[in-house]
């Protein structure tokens, strides 16, 4: 099934529009090994300590142990190992399939959230370990769109400080990817600079504010001979200006308060600058879904009309109409 058809098929029923007094959804995205899940654990315990209304969702089907108490866990609905053997898939195919299966029922998740919304301040969503399973999949798109059109949603892009400082080229590649995520989701972005207990984030913050410092660091990296063109560093500079960077240590909890401050600012930004676009996209999706439905009905009508009438058999066929319509959707 192609992405558009999947999106149309799984378009959630209309949920209320996001409210300022409602919770903010944090979509945790980052490269494998960036420390997403550990950060989730820290944020979770911090919010619980402060008795803040919190809801946690785990979307990683392959995580062996979820170190935080998830209110909704994809692993309760989809068993990754079983998907692997049942559909005869490799590890990657199984992650994608698990996420697809979960995405088809995501309207239920929205329903739960909506019921609890008045008592919640934060909804933390952990995404699969391999970044592309979420950022380059139809189901990731469906889930992101469903959440962001119902609640204030910000992307928390997690970057590991020690690895970035040790290797400026890696940091650059990571930032290009983060920028790519921002263009895909068209949502406000908070950069969580993690593992600051191992190494301070100052170097990164300097690179982000002073491109000459960054160029200098790049040139000192012997494994990287690439000439960073001016236009590329200009893109990165402008990208940094659109986001908030929050150094944070999941181990000691240092910086967590400030991190939530950045999230709160990004939430305001969502309402002031992003919501109009989110609603425009939602409307376009609903119209496309309606159009696809009308076309399929028309096709069905046509098929039925061209079928020769055979008395009782014909009556049975009309009953099965709904099923046929679904099949038609998958063929496209």
């Amino acid at each position, binding site marked *: 099934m192609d992405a558009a058809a999947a999106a149309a098929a799984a378009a959630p029923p209309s949920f209320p529009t996001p409210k300022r007094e409602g919770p903010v959804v944090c979509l945790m995205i980052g*490269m494998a*090994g960036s420390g997403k899940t550990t950060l989730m654990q820290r944020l979770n315990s911090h919010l619980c300590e402060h008795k803040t209304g919190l809801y946690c969702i785990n979307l990683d089907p392959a995580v062996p142990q979820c170190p935080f108490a998830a209110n909704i866990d994809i692993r309760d609905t989809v068993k990754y190992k079983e998907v692997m053997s049942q559909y005869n898939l490799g590890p990657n195919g199984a992650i994608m399939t698990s996420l697809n299966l979960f995405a088809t029922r995501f309207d239920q998740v929205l329903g739960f959230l909506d019921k609890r919304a008045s008592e919640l301040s934060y909804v933390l969503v952990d995404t699969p370990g391999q970044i592309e399973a979420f950022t380059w999949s139809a189901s990731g798109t469906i889930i992101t769109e469903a959440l962001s059109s119902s609640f204030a949603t910000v992307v928390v892009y997690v970057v590991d400080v020690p690895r970035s400082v040790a290797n400026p080229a890696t940091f650059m590649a990571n930032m290009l990817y983060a920028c790519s995520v921002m263009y895909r989701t068209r949502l406000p972005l908070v950069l969580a600079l993690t593992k600051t207990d191992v190494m301070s984030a100052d170097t990164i913050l300097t690179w982000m504010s002073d491109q000459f410092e960054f160029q200098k660091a790049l040139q000192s990296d012997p494994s990287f001979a690439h000439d960073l063109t001016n236009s590329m560093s200009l893109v990165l500079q402008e990208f940094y200006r659109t986001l908030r960077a929050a150094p944070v240590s999941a181990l000691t909890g240092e910086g967590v308060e400030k991190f939530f401050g950045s999230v709160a600012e990004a939430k305001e930004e969502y309402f002031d600058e992003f919501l109009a676009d989110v609603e425009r996209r939602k409307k376009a999706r609903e119209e496309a879904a309606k159009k696809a439905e009308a076309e399929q009905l028309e096709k069905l009508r046509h098929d039925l009309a061209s079928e020769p009438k055979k008395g009782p058999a014909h009556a049975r066929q009309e009953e099965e109409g709904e099923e046929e319509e679904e099949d038609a959707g998958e063929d496209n």
Partner: protein
Amino acid sequence: MVKYAQLVMGPAGSGKSTYCEAMARHCGSGGPGRRSVHVVNLDPAAEELRYRASIDVRELVRVEEVMQELGLGPNGGLLYAMEYVVQNIEWLAEELGDYDDDYLLVDCPGQVELYSHIPVMKTLVEALVRADYAVVGLYLVDSHFMTDAAKFISGALTCLSAMVRLEVPHLNVLTKMDLQPRLGPDDPRRRDLEAFLDVDVPAITARLREQTGPRMEALNRAMAELLDDYSMVSFVPLDLGDPASLDALLEQCDTMTQWAENQEPRDPHEDARDAADPGDSHDDADAGD
């Protein structure tokens, strides 16, 4: 002597193996780009392959087995497997030795982490370059994910993120163009698609401005400049059902690796004979076993 390899990259589901299969068949079936092609599978987590792999890294290591034996998750399993490949690079070098005169299509794992975050792919590419391979990278992206200007920019940045560390010439390829629903002339998606394939920067910027808020205005302008002076962010459309589309892509790759300059001049009579016997090239391919 220069040898040639295409690295086929892209996220899961972007059509890497399908492309390898189609291109291998295309190159074996005559035409201007005719050559002896072998496909190398470099993804230790690959499922069933659509092509007959001349070299299959899964003979060395399989992610599923690593996961089982070491009790790792899919992430840890993949990392372990790829690092194992790097440690056993002689295995790869030895296998490659059998295909010295052939054009290689290398089906790579998709996870972007392997390109930018952990430099295993960089190490493997360096090994190829050291072994005298002229390498061209193809980054495949499913055209169904590229439905508006913002998503195009997103796709271009994803490619850039993976390629910026590999430092080999590369092309971004928009796959599954044949599966695109027929878009009407007034469909905004069609306008977006055309603007992007032609790198029509003013049109792209105008569409971006409609899609994003004031906060991203300056970033959009910077992106426009990047598009203007960086061919790395443009895309080649690919329709596997259309031989002309495959030829066009192959030609671009050949320009980048200067393939034609290093070919023996061909005897036109031999060409005619080969064309009359299409099975010939296939036999050649099998002889490598």
